[in-house]
């Protein structure tokens, strides 16, 4: 993106390199994250099918972060499904955080601030959901 070059560094060429490096780093994060998330969900689905769980009628417990390690150790499908789904939701957040640090490192304070604000909006989402009765 040539537009990125002007703000990311003094020299246009090095600015373009920085922008491309950042995009490549974020791309790697998303690719690896997707593979991990899909693998975890796949294990969860296989365990679910093997256990004969009927997905449309089975009752599921409320989401509990504390219960996940125990479910994983016991090879319960919900442990892998919840972990996979959490990785799914963590990927975009990770992208924003990595981008924010990248922008900050490149001296682009405005975009770094924008990244921070996006994370703040997500934090407000979590607080609002918990505040409204979880």
């Amino acid at each position, binding site marked *: *993106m*040539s*537009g*990125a070059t*002007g*703000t990311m560094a003094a020299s246009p060429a090095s600015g373009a390199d920085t922008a*491309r490096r*950042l*995009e*490549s780093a*974020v*791309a790697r994060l*998303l*690719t690896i*994250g*997707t593979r991990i*998330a*899909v693998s975890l*969900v*796949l294990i*969860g*689905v296989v365990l*679910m*099918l093997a256990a*004969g*769980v*009927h*997905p*449309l009628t*089975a009752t*599921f417990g*409320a*989401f509990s972060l504390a219960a996940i390690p125990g479910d994983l150790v016991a090879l319960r*499908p*919900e442990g892998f*499904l*919840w972990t*996979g*789904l959490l990785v*799914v*939701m963590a*990927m*975009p*957040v990770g992208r*924003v955080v990595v*981008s924010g640090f990248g*922008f900050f490192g490149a001296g682009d304070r*405005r*975009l770094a601030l*924008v990244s921070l*604000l996006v994370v703040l*909006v*997500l934090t*407000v*989402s979590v607080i*609002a*959901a918990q505040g*409204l*009765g*979880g």
Partner: protein
Amino acid sequence: MIAGIVLLAGGAAAGVFGSLLGLGGGILIVPLLTLVFGLPLREAVAVSLVSVIVTSSASAGVYLQRHTANLRLGMVLELFTASGALVGGLVAFLLSDRVLAGLFAALLAWVAVSMLRAGAKSKAAAAQAAVGPSASAQSPSSETVGPAEPAPGSFTATLGGDGYSVRKLPLGMVGSVFAGLVSAILGVGGGIVKVPVMNLVMGVPLKVATATSNMMIGITATSSAVIYLLRGQIDPYVAGPTALGVFAGAMIGSRIAARIDVRLLRWLFVIVLIFNAFQMGTKALAQ
């Protein structure tokens, strides 16, 4: 066991269709889960949001690797889509299933009409190309019409890319808030709003607008998905197979896209959308 496999297959079908037609799977997943599998609408929206995050992250990785998506513009606009999604995620719990079904019916009808118009435009463009280049030169495309370039050194000027400048950023921000609202309430990616706003209003080339919108879906959908998660609306037994199916379907779709006649598919899809809109509309009126 069969229900799990059917969910996987249904998700895969939504993923293939969505990928071939350039749509996220959400527009198909929500009707599939509510009308076929009988899931409550709000639960279907939550499952759909998780599914669109998976496909968005997978395709955003590819787009960023190829440097097609505009990371800087995406970051700025997703602040507004995320804010819209935060509000939408909270508003969704205040709306009755009847209202949600009515809104979804309206969205389906809108997408069907948009697809018909897009089909008619591409037909007209093909006819114009057959007449000759001089004819097409007389009617400039939307990308060449617009206000002056942003002032050099302004924040907006730093958001452009190779061969294009970003215009009307404030309008883009407003459109993004609306896209976030739609995404959170109806469980879709919001590309149906973001892509036209970026392309027609902000002057971003269609290919870049599509890639950037796709990248933004992840954060938009996550903003509201966490609300659905913490309020107990995400069923992992349904979300798991559906998201897996949509992911696999989207991968298959991207590989077979070049060999498929999209015109026929578009017509088939429009019929499916109209049928679903009718069903959703009936649900809204009947409950």
